[in-house]
């Protein structure tokens, strides 16, 4: 009987199973599972959201062609379309507050003509969050259909009445779905759908009110194309035409950014798991050195040894990937459940494409870290069976760092498709890990020194932390990183919000009044003042669009940021003022004199964001289109605006005189204390055209969305913590023989099992505390930086951050480490020392 190499497959598989049974592979496979689970959870989830966008793109417009404008559209267009055989409908939408008793809620009101939607179907339910059915009907006169959120928030039931401006409407049904509800993401303000015929009765819409006027067209593609060709030259620049497919592009862009962020979060997990894989693969191959030499001694050819190793690695990667994909699949379902309110309607089922990312990642990680030592296994001299010192290939921790880093870089590039970002991630993570490493090293040294001041189990535990040196540092850094992010999201985020609230004066405005017609300015102000409310300044404003800079049209201009592009493409609120408004600081140029000759050129003051976004300098000549009329202005100065003052502020302010009397509407903000809120209901009835926004209520709405999003990110970073556990497990595994021996020695010298276990617990609790110190410090510094440099807030260090960091670290690491090592006391000292 001779050795036949075709048996390697069966041999390798059988031996892998035996390795698994002996517990040799648990950490290696576990690290792969965590990495793959983190990556695929994110990929499954973002894939579902992305598919929701794609699937709904077809009916996203509720039409084949959609025309949107900030000003009423010509009814002639509808007639022209109908003459061409197209179906038409129209829609008016704007944000407003609905009232029920003293409660109010920011909603998006949609007044529809018959025929809406031209594509897709509305779905309604008889009760909030109830089972929905499709309908071709629309709310009849006197009735509104509202989203479940409106009913839930205002404590309403179907059949109750709600107040919309001057009109009370009966809630006829719960609106579950409309085709143009914005693809995947639900609007911040829930929709109230009412018949267009009821809109005038609400008196909400005045001349100059901020609203979006929409016409919908549908027909066969040739008819739509012909109508579009007819319409293009007739529309103004402010009118936007959107055809199928065009509307989802912008959303897809935002989605890509969110996806990248979550992928980067998952990547932190992958990198930590890579550390665990490297440590476990190193132990795996080291333990297989003797086996490889033995196999060769028994007659196995080099190829057999190599193929066996490769096949085993491949199987580990595949098994780890499959379990990881399954875990990722379950995790994405949990993510989707957490974020269910962010989506309009159910998300489509996930596709299996991310499974390939998972499998590829597992293969890449294992190959990157285990292949170089595996190739060395092949070259193990067979003489090793006689002499352990003979030519054992050196298996240093950084044996093939370039290979592993190369594989990781390729993996990153594959996931992010952006060489610059990959470079940034590498440099950034490298620096971050370097700093954390140094900090961890310092902490471990301090802990080792601190053992002199302690006794018993603590001394033994701290001595071990110090003695294991870089092994301890790796664990502290791995846990520290995961904990840092969780602390940032769980504690620092709340701190920042509290600091921000505290930074606002107690009497900061908390209600905005917009769409005040010129005739209502005086009586509204008088009513407010009569109720004891202080009214500072009422700003006039018009809608204006920038069309040229220094005689060159802005269309076709290159913008360095999306924000700049947005400024140039969208209409802005433009106001005028004789003096520099409160909350504004002049940063360049000079403010215009209070008295200027009537024929002096019109000057403009720009917020720095606006000027920087478009690339405008002091002295530049700008042309704005205001209701179809061009207005030339010269840039006199730039302002820094404190946007969170809750007073009306404008990107564009012009010198007084040019537009006096042209204002469509006015706006102001006031502070109402709880008792003064009673004034609102009568005010809204007296001035139905005025829209009132309760800042606190809007903040609550924003907060709920942000909280859910942050919980999803926390979910992703829980995987990072799991990766920390894997690093710990790998480190424990690599020191298991050593620990078993130490335990046997201590017990031989008379230490009880309890004392040995206390020592182990002390070691891991100490590691956890160090990770907690690192994480709390890093989170506090990050919080301070963000507060100081991004939000201009004074950050006060929160003692709970430290309590949470230290206790969380001690608990997780202490329990995990203790569980992983307690078995060392189960083997008898005799067996260990003899072994």
């Amino acid at each position: 009987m001779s050795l036949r190499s075709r048996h390697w497959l069966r041999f390798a598989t059988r031996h892998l199973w035996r390795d698994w049974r002996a517990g040799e592979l648990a950490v290696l496979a576990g690290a792969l599972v965590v990495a793959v689970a983190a990556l695929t959870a994110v990929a499954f989830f973002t894939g579902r959201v992305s598919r929701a966008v794609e699937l709904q793109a077809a009916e996203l417009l509720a039409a084949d062609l959609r025309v949107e404008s900030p000003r009423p559209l010509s009814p002639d267009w509808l007639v022209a379309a109908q003459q061409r055989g197209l179906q038409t409908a129209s829609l008016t939408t704007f944000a407003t507050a609905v009232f029920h008793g003293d409660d109010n809620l920011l909603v998006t009101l949609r007044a529809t003509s018959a025929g809406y939607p031209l594509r897709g179907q509305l779905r309604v339910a008889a009760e909030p969050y109830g089972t929905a059915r499709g309908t071709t009907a629309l709310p009849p006169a006197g009735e509104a259909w509202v989203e479940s959120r409106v009913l839930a928030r205002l404590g309403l039931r179907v059949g109750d009445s709600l107040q919309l401006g001057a009109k009370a409407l009966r809630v006829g049904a719960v609106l579950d779905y409309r085709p143009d509800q914005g693809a995947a993401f639900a609007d911040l303000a829930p929709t109230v759908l009412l018949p267009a015929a009821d809109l005038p009765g609400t008196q909400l819409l005045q001349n100059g009110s901020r609203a979006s006027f929409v016409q919908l067209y549908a027909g066969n593609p040739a008819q739509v194309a012909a109508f579009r060709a007819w319409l293009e030259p007739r529309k103004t620049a402010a009118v936007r035409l959107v055809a199928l497919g065009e509307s989802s592009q912008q959303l897809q862009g935002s989605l890509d950014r969110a996806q990248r962020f979550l992928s980067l979060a998952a990547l932190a997990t992958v990198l930590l798991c890579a550390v665990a894989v490297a440590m476990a693969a190193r132990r795996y191959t080291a333990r297989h050195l003797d086996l490889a030499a033995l196999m060769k001694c028994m007659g196995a050819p080099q190829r057999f040894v190599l193929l066996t190793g490769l096949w085993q690695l491949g199987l580990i990667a595949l098994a780890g990937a499959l379990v990881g994909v399954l875990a990722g699949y379950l995790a994405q379902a949990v993510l989707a459940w957490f974020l269910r309110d962010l989506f309009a309607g159910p998300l489509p089922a996930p596709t299996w494409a991310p499974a390939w990312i998972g499998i590829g990642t597992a293969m890449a990680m294992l190959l990157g870290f285990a292949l170089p030592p595996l190739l060395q296994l092949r070259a193990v001299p067979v003489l090793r069976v006689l002499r352990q010192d003979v030519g054992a290939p050196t298996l240093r921790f950084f044996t093939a760092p370039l290979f592993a880093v190369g594989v990781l870089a390729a993996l990153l590039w594959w996931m992010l498709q952006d060489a610059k970002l990959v470079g940034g991630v590498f440099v950034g993570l490298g620096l971050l890990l370097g700093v954390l490493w140094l900090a961890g090293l310092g902490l471990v040294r301090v802990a080792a020194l601190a053992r002199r001041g302690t006794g018993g189990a603590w001394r033994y535990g701290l001595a071990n932390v110090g003695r294991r040196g870089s092994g301890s540092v790796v664990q502290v850094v791995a846990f520290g990183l995961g904990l840092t992010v969780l602390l940032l999201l769980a504690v620092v985020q709340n701190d920042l919000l509290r600091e921000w609230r505290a930074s606002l004066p107690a009497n900061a405005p908390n209600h905005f009044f917009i769409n005040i017609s010129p005739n209502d300015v005086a009586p509204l102000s008088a009513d407010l003042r009569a109720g004891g409310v202080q009214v500072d300044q009422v700003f006039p404003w018009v809608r204006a669009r920038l069309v040229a800079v220094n005689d060159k049209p802005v269309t076709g201009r290159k913008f360095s940021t999306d924000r700049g592009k947005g400024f140039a493409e969208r209409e802005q609120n433009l106001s005028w003022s004789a003096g520099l408004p409160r909350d504004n600081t002049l940063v360049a140029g000079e403010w215009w004199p209070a008295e200027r000759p009537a024929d002096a050129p019109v000057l403009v003051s720009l917020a720095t964001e606006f000027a920087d976004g478009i690339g405008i300098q002091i002295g530049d000549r700008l042309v704005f289109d205001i209701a179809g009329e061009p207005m030339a202005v010269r840039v006199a100065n730039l302002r820094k605006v404190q946007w969170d003052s809750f007073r009306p502020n404008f990107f564009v302010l012009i010198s007084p005189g040019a537009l006096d009397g042209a204002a469509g509407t006015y706006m102001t903000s006031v502070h109402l204390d709880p008792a003064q809120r009673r004034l609102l209901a009568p005010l809204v009835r007296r001035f139905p055209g005025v829209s009132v926004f309760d800042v606190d209520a809007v903040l609550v709405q924003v907060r709920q969305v942000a909280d859910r999003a942050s919980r999803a990110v926390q979910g992703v970073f829980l995987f990072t913590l799991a990766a920390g556990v894997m690093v710990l497990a790998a480190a424990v595994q690599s020191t298991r023989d050593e620990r078993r021996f130490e335990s046997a020695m201590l017990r031989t010298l008379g230490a009880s099992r309890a004392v040995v276990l206390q020592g182990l617990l002390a070691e891991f609790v100490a590691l956890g505390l160090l990770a907690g110190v690192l994480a709390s410090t890093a989170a506090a510094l990050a919080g301070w930086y963000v507060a100081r440099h991004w939000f201009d807030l004074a950050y006060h260090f929160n003692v709970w951050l430290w309590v949470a960091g230290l206790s969380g670290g001690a608990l997780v690491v202490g329990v995990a480490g203790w569980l992983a090592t307690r078995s060392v006391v189960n083997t008898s000292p005799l067996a260990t020392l003899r072994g």
Partner: protein
Amino acid sequence: MLEAKEVTQQVSSPEGTLTILDQVSFQLGAGETVAIVGASGAGKSTLLGLLAGLDVPTQGAVLLGGQSLSALDEDGRAALRADRVGFVFQAFHLVPALTALENVMLPLELRGDSSARVVAAEAISRVGLAARAAHYPRQLSGGEQQRVALARAFVTRPQVLFADEPTGNLDAATGLRVVDLLFALNREAGTTLVLVTHDRTLAARCGRVLELAAGKLVADTLTVAA
């Protein structure tokens, strides 16, 4: 069966070339039992490695069953070992992740033997460890581990068995029991046994003793056992 022809082994060291074996020649017949003895550093283990084809001599030749090992590449020598050679080591070299039975199955599985489990179970019974077949090496005493190693060495019915200090890690009484078993198995299988040892008593149980000193074969003696 096994022949060494002027086998010389030299290694380079910072001090120059070091001669570990110097023109060692002898012939072993089938079924012969031979002990290689000598002080530490005399070149015993090196000679064993060369005879088993674990390495090739700098000069001279080793012939196993008439085949020159130097003429074969590493895989060729491995194939020859798979067919004809068994090993017992001082440090046992049992695979920690495998049970006693699986350790004995290892060489059979490497050959693709479909009856590996049955054959190995017989072999482990023969060394008196049937009840311990499912135990891992760490659960076995040193003597038991070496008995498993013996079962593993004989399970492929090799023509030549090489044993490197087989009792080196065992106490005297255990060592004696293991050696008794080694010679009993050897007799049953008619295997050629090449044994490296410090132990003169153990050497005396072999039919022939080759004594090395400073890399040279200084004595080739037939014993009473012969």
